[in-house]
């Protein structure tokens, strides 16, 4: 199961610890009929899970809840790591999150943004982790460019580098292929493939190519796909 040889920056640091997510009656309502409808699921490492559904079904909302960024208005989500339940605020080291809403500090360079995150995460070799994450996403030559000067595709690569920076066992990727060219998509698929061996990936997407990466699927209902 586990890949042999030295780890790269984008491989998960999960060792033998199992991570399990179990949602019971989980829902989040922004307004009447808007948001994530009640859902139950259970997933665990290793694996890749696609979260699919029409626009407005709450794919991004579900990822934010799993990341501990949003408190659900109904139900529970048990996030356990090696048998211990992690509170929302204690999940930072365990998850890597990339989403279109993730913005960086435009006045800082790509490397400075990641170095900030690496230091805040308490990584022992922060510079090494930053260089490896940028290299894995093909951004080494843009490391010293300010984020405000990066294109949409480069910013998306930086989001993925940020998610994988601290080698988290769980990757939460919201539309990871958006704005990416073919090379960027291939790199993303390689990250997901590396994570599959030991960790867990939740992939919010409606892209057929990205859906094919998944071993299982959580289909969300409602949104614009629900005529009611």
């Amino acid at each position, binding site marked *: 199961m586990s890949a042999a040889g030295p780890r790269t920056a984008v491989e998960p640091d999960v060792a033998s610890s199992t991570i399990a997510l179990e949602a019971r009656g989980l829902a989040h309502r922004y307004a009447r009929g808007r948001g994530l409808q009640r859902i139950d699921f259970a997933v665990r490492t290793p694996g890749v899970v696609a979260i699919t559904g029409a626009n407005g079904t709450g794919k991004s909302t579900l990822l*934010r809840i799993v*990341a501990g*960024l*949003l*408190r659900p208005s109904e139900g529970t989500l048990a996030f356990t790591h090696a048998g211990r339940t992690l509170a*929302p*605020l*204690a999940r*930072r080291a365990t*998850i890597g*999150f990339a*989403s279109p*809403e*993730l*913005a*960086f*500090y*435009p*006045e*800082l360079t790509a490397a*400075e*943004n990641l170095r*900030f*995150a690496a*230091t*805040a*995460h*308490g990584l022992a070799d922060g510079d090494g982790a930053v260089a490896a994450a940028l290299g894995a996403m093909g951004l080494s030559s843009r490391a010293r460019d300010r984020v405000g000067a990066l294109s949409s595709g480069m910013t998306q690569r930086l989001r993925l580098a*940020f998610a994988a920076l601290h080698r988290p066992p769980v990757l939460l990727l919201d539309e990871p292929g958006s704005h990416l060219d073919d090379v960027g998509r291939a790199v993303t698929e390689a990250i997901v493939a590396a994570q599959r061996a030991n960790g867990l990936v939740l992939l919010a997407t409606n892209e057929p190519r990205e859906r094919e990466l998944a071993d299982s699927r959580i289909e969300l209902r409602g949104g614009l796909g629900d005529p009611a």
Partner: protein
Amino acid sequence: MPTRESSFAAVWAILRKECRSEWRTRYGLNSALLFAITTLTAVSFAVGRLGDRTDVLAALLWIVILFAALASLSHTFVREVEGHTQTLLRLAAGPTPIAVGKLLFNLLFLGVLEVVTVPLFMILMGGPPPHWGTFLGVLALGSVALAVAATLVGAVIAQTRGRNALFAGVSLPLLLPLLAAVVSATRAQWTGNPVTFELRLLAAYTFALLAASLLLYDHLWED
């Protein structure tokens, strides 16, 4: 659970990020210094040197520091919301290290502002020589209290829609006792009166506000 070392690392990361962003954008420092220098110069031209009017001198000094700093200090959290970087910040560090990092930056900001403003004030306003030990003690404690209050107000208003209106409403009850205590202490050190009561009041105010802030930050900085 975050260890003590990782919390220190997160505080350091946030402080360094704030300093670097401020250095690159000069978002707050330029406008704060501009306000302080133009106000002191205008008052100096209008009324000349105030000499032994220690009541006016004490009030003027703290009004200049307060208004020069407040807009920038309380916007440390608002900038994260308006720049959509709060998700990045919350994924990188916990609420308490974020708040402590921003508080330390606000203290540093006030320190830089006062290094320019206070000597300029002394030169232009021409007050009597201060009792340096007491004066610097009042300045330091007043700055800590102001930074703690402004950081808390910033965290409270950042997540709200009507943040500009709320800013005044939340700031007023928090800043009035602080301002009264520092003005009274600054005047007392010039006139040679004891400042023990004011310093104790400031210390208690700062401690209470800091304790309340640390308890509140976990709840303030979430959706």
